Every structure is written in C-alpha cells, then in structure tokens.
C-alpha cells in the first residue's frame, strides 16, 4: 500500500534560522531563488531572541484552499493538503485568503506557492526539525 505522508514540523524549537529548508524548496520544487516561493517559510517570532516559527501547510482535510479554488488548480490531496496544477491557475488568490495558517504565498502576480508535502526540504535541516509523518488511512 502506498504510504501517505505529510510534512510536519515537530521540533521547531531547535531551529537556528538558516532557511536551508525554504531555500531548498524554492530551489528544488519551484526552481527559484527566493525566501518566499517556498512551501515552508521561516519567520522569527517577534525578533531573533524569541526563536523561529515555520509557516508550512498543515495538511487540512478537507483543505479550505482547495474548496476555495474556482478552477481546480488546487485539489484535495488524500493524505491532507493539496495537489497543485499550475496550468489551471487563474491567479485569483482565493486560496491564500482561505488558508487558516497563512501557508499560501502569493507573488506579485498573485501566483500561489504552497507545500506539496514532497519532503525534499527535510534532509537540508541541520537540526532535524522537520519530519515526514505517516497519516492514518
């Protein structure tokens, strides 16, 4: 049976703010150099002295962003989260507005960027903050 996994961030207290995960996602998934066009984004939580938070997709099921998408560019992923078909996107931005955790980034042309739970960011974290977790069927 195919495993159903989602990206989780169980150990963010260990985060050192190197952004290796975000940069890896931007580079490997979206073929960009950017802090923003990434499915996981790291922010300092009120200044560097208070540590870091991740802004990942929390794998809603059903996903409000998929429900809000008028063209099927975002569709429900079985393990939670969404499957993204960029060709279908009309850049309306409704997905970002619907997301309860601010996990969808819109660039200046309103193109959305969100985690697809592929796990390519995980090995780049030097402190093992991230983990691909299996979801119960």
């Amino acid at each position, binding site marked *: 049976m195919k495993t159903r996994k989602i990206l989780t961030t169980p150990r963010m207290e260990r985060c*050192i*703010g*190197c*952004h*290796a995960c975000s*940069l890896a996602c931007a*580079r*490997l998934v979206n*073929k*960009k*150099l*950017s*802090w*923003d*066009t990434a499915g996981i*984004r*790291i*922010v*300092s939580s*009120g*200044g*560097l*002295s208070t*540590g*870091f938070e991740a802004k990942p997709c929390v794998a809603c099921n059903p996903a409000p962003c998929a429900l809000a998408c008028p063209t099927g560019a975002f569709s429900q992923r079985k393990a939670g989260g969404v499957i993204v078909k960029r060709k279908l996107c009309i850049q309306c931005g409704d997905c970002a507005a619907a997301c309860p955790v601010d996990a969808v980034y819109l*660039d*200046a042309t309103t193109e959305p960027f969100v985690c697809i739970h592929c796990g390519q960011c995980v090995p*780049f*974290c*030097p*402190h093992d903050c991230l983990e691909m977790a299996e979801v119960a069927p």
Partner: protein
Amino acid sequence: MIRDHFRILTVDLATGKGRIVIIDGRDTVAGGSGLAALLFEKYGHPDRPWDDPEQPLIFAIGPLTGYFPLMSKTVCGFKSPYHDQYGESHGGGRSALSLRFADLDGLVITGRAERPSFLSIGSRHLELKDVHYMWGVDLQESGKMLRKMIGGAGHRSILRIGPAGENLSAYACITVDTYRHFGRLGGGAVMGSKNLKAIAILGDGIFDLPEGKEYASLFDDVHNKLTTTDMMDKYHNLGTPVNVAILNEIKALPIRNLQRTTDPKIKGITGETFADDTLLRNTACAGCPVGCIHIGFVREKFMEPNQYLYRQVSYDHEPVFATGSMLGMTNAFSVLAIIDMVEKMGLDVMSAGVALAWATEALENGVISEKETLVPLKFDDAAGYKEAVQHLGLGTNDFYRLLAQGTMKAAEQYGGENFACVLGQEMAGYATGEVFFTSQALGFRHSHLDSGGYSFDQKHEEKDVKQAVDFLVKDEQGRVLLTSMVSCLFAREVYNNELLADCLNALGYTTLAGNMHQVAQHVQKMRWRLRLSTGFNPQGVKIPGSFTEVTTWKGPVDEKYLNALKEEYAKRIMDLGRSEGT
C-alpha cells in the same frame, strides 16, 4: 539575480531619493570586497574627511551570495573614523541574502539626512522615515521599535546603531539582526554622522535559477561537504570560544591587558564553561546550516524578593577575549553581562574591551585617576566595567569621549602608549607571536581575519622573514577572493579555487571562473591603492612596547624578528598599492 554587471542602488539621504545604477566590472572585481572598492573609487572622496556628508557608506555582496551555502556575508566599505582611511568591515545575519533578494549587488548611501532617519529598501520599495524619537534609544529597544515599523519578519535584515554611533565613537559598530555586527573600524559612526539610525532591507524578490540539474546537484554536494566535515563540529559545537582554552594552554591568550598569556583562572571563561553553564541555543546567518552563533544569557535581579529579568547575548572567541580575559574576568556570566552592555551601546566589543583593559592598567599605574574613569576600574570587576562601557558609549566626559576615538589616542594624551594594546586598532584575541602582531598591525582591515598570521605563528618555529611575509601576502589574496564572492571565512577550507570555479560556472559566470587568480590579485592591489591614497603609511606603523614583552610557548617575543617582519610587510604593501594600474 545572475548578471554580468552590478545593479547598485544609490540613496541620497539629503533628498530621500534613490537611483538604480548599472556598473560594469563583474569579471574584474567579482563583488564583495572588490565591488566595495570599485564603488568607493566611483563615489568616495579620498581627500575629504570620513564624516563629509558626501562620503559613501557601501554595502556589497558577491556573485555567489544566496546561491550556495555560507555565501552569507556582506562587505561594508567606508572611510573609517578610526583612521580616516578607507576600510572594510564584514557582517552576516540576514544582510547578504536580503540584499540578494532585494535584487541589489550593492547599496551606496551618501548625504546626510536632515533629521534622524530610518531607511528601508526592498526589490519594490524605498522609503526614508523620520525617527527623531529613536535617537538616543539603545540598540535593543530600537530593535523592538523598528521591527514593528516594517513587514517581512524573517525575510528582512535590520541594521542599526546605538548611542555610540550617534556620538560618533570611532569604534561604534553597525549591529545586524541583533546578534551579528559590522563590528570594526567605526561604521556605526558613519551612520551616526549621516543621521541614519537604521536600515531595513526587505528580501522580497524572486529569481529564476539556471536550467538543468547541474546547479541543484552542485548545491547538494557543497551542502554535504559543509555539513559533514569537522568544520561543522568546530564552529557548531563550542564555536570559536573553543580557542580560549587552547590559547591559554599554549600561552597565547591576551590576559589583563596582555600582562599575561596564560592563567589557570581562565577555566571560568572557556568555551567549554560557556557551553556547560550559559548556552541557550545556536542560531545562524541566513543561508548557513552551520549555525555558529552561540547565544547565552544574563539574568539580573532587579527587585526583592526574587524578581529577575533575563536577556540573551551572543558570544564568540573575540568578545570573550576582549571583555573576558583582557579584563581579568573569571566568570562566564560576568563576561556576558559586559557584552550585553556593549551591545546596548552599539560599540565594537573588541575595541571596547581592549580600551577598558588599557584604562584599568593606566589607573593602576597612576597614569589616569578616577577623575577620568569615574568608576574604580579593577580587573575582574564586572559591575565597574558595565558602568564604564556605558560611559564609553554615551561619551560622559572628555576622557571617555577621547577613549571612544581609540585607545592610542587616549594614551597619546594621558600617557601609557607602551601598554596600549593597539595593532592598527585594538588587538584581536591572539598573542601568538611576531607574525600575528605584524599581520594585524599592518593588515588591510587590521583584523585577525585579513590573513592567518596567528595560524602561521603556531605552525612555524623558524624565523624566516621572507617566508612569513610571502604567506601573509598570499593568504590575504586567497581571502580577498573569498570575501569578493562573498563567503564566510569559516568555509575557507571547503571553498577552494576549484570549487569556487565550479560554483561560478554553474551560474554562468564562466569568464570570472577562469579569471579568479587575476581577480584576486587585482582586488588585493586595488584595496591597498585605496588605503594608501587615503593616507595609510605602512612604514610608519608602530607596535607598542607591551607586544615585545609577551612570552608565548615559544619563549619571549623576538623584537628584532618583529621589526624585520614589519619592515618587509610594509615594503610589500607599498609595492602592492603602487603597482595597480601602472
């Protein structure tokens, strides 16, 4: 963005307006140190004083910034208030990646704002705000205020100055993202003289990467090399304070204003003690998985019964040496308390610690009195030093105002030049011997990072002047290539020329990749030419007497060897500075 030229933003603080300027030179100066020198040649005024409003404050990144791990530093170039000559200071934090994502290779700030101001820039943003109410506010408080004024948390860099910069201390630093600094040579005073309290750089740009798999695959290789070598252990584990115990063991740690080079009491402030007792966590510059920044804490009882506050303080070997061993401190928490005050004031921690070490010895010797120091400075007395740091930052009286211009300036007026631990600027934390003393006294930035003189001292017993000076010149050339890319120098063992060429080729900088040796030579000469044109006379450099009284594991410092090194290195610097363009 990958481009064969430089895209520079110039901002005139007098008008609040900026301009995007395209400048050629990628294949001849690369970026970083080379670009800062190129921009100073274009915008600087060698014949005018450092605080002339038209002098530029320059920030420059390199062709590899953001594209590869540990390419995470920014070079700041300016005419320094410390010696009124061209100088560089390097800083990390998020500054380099923010400039990259703001789509800028360099930022040049000229003019003087009419009122205390806050400049914010981004890939689609430029604004100069009046923040007169923030003048006089310490660095920690102003950081809290600034963070609320702009968006982009986590994807921006905030550079700011404290009271020392506002009061034009010649060693006021520019603090970057709370825990990093453009520490040395007084960049903070340059901002102060421009009425510029802070700069925010918003990293909000998005760029395409090279087609194909070559780049991503090379990135993986570099990332693996950087995170699997012992470098990770060296900088991530205890961090640079690992040096404290090592140098103490080999009698090469400056202690009590260089009166000693080893002391059993040092065990209270070693990297091991800091890690065991004070370390809260590590943090990193953006784009660096090594995470060398070590954060400890100070805890203060401010009221009875049992009412405490705490603050987080970053520490490294240099701050621990300067405010620790140099001041005779024997307790790690006391050292952090002094560093914390230095951070609030926005002083360069190395210069501040060494200046107060001189003042302590001067007070002991009766060269100065408490009328000058206002507090009874005593080695190992943290409370007195905390108060003195505040006086230094605020410029409370004539003595502290002069001391804040440089230890030697105060010593020239009050006496005690012999024991002023100044090597071009206040010394770094290595009493390893003749080659290091020469290297810092004459080095381009007067930094322990200009070249590995401290390492040469530890590896060579023989006293071969030519061999040592050849090493200093060649090592500087290798390092200037790295600081033109701009790599963190902690990665210097990984980023050899072959790997740098691979990285440049993967991004399409093929001419530069084939030209690195010439670029390194060119930038080295260009920087020295600028330094000489702004008044540096290497042949006039003096090394104070206390350095010749040092005894290391090799025995007493050999004054004759030291003088021969100084003479030869000065000659080579003159040759380097003269040869460019001829």
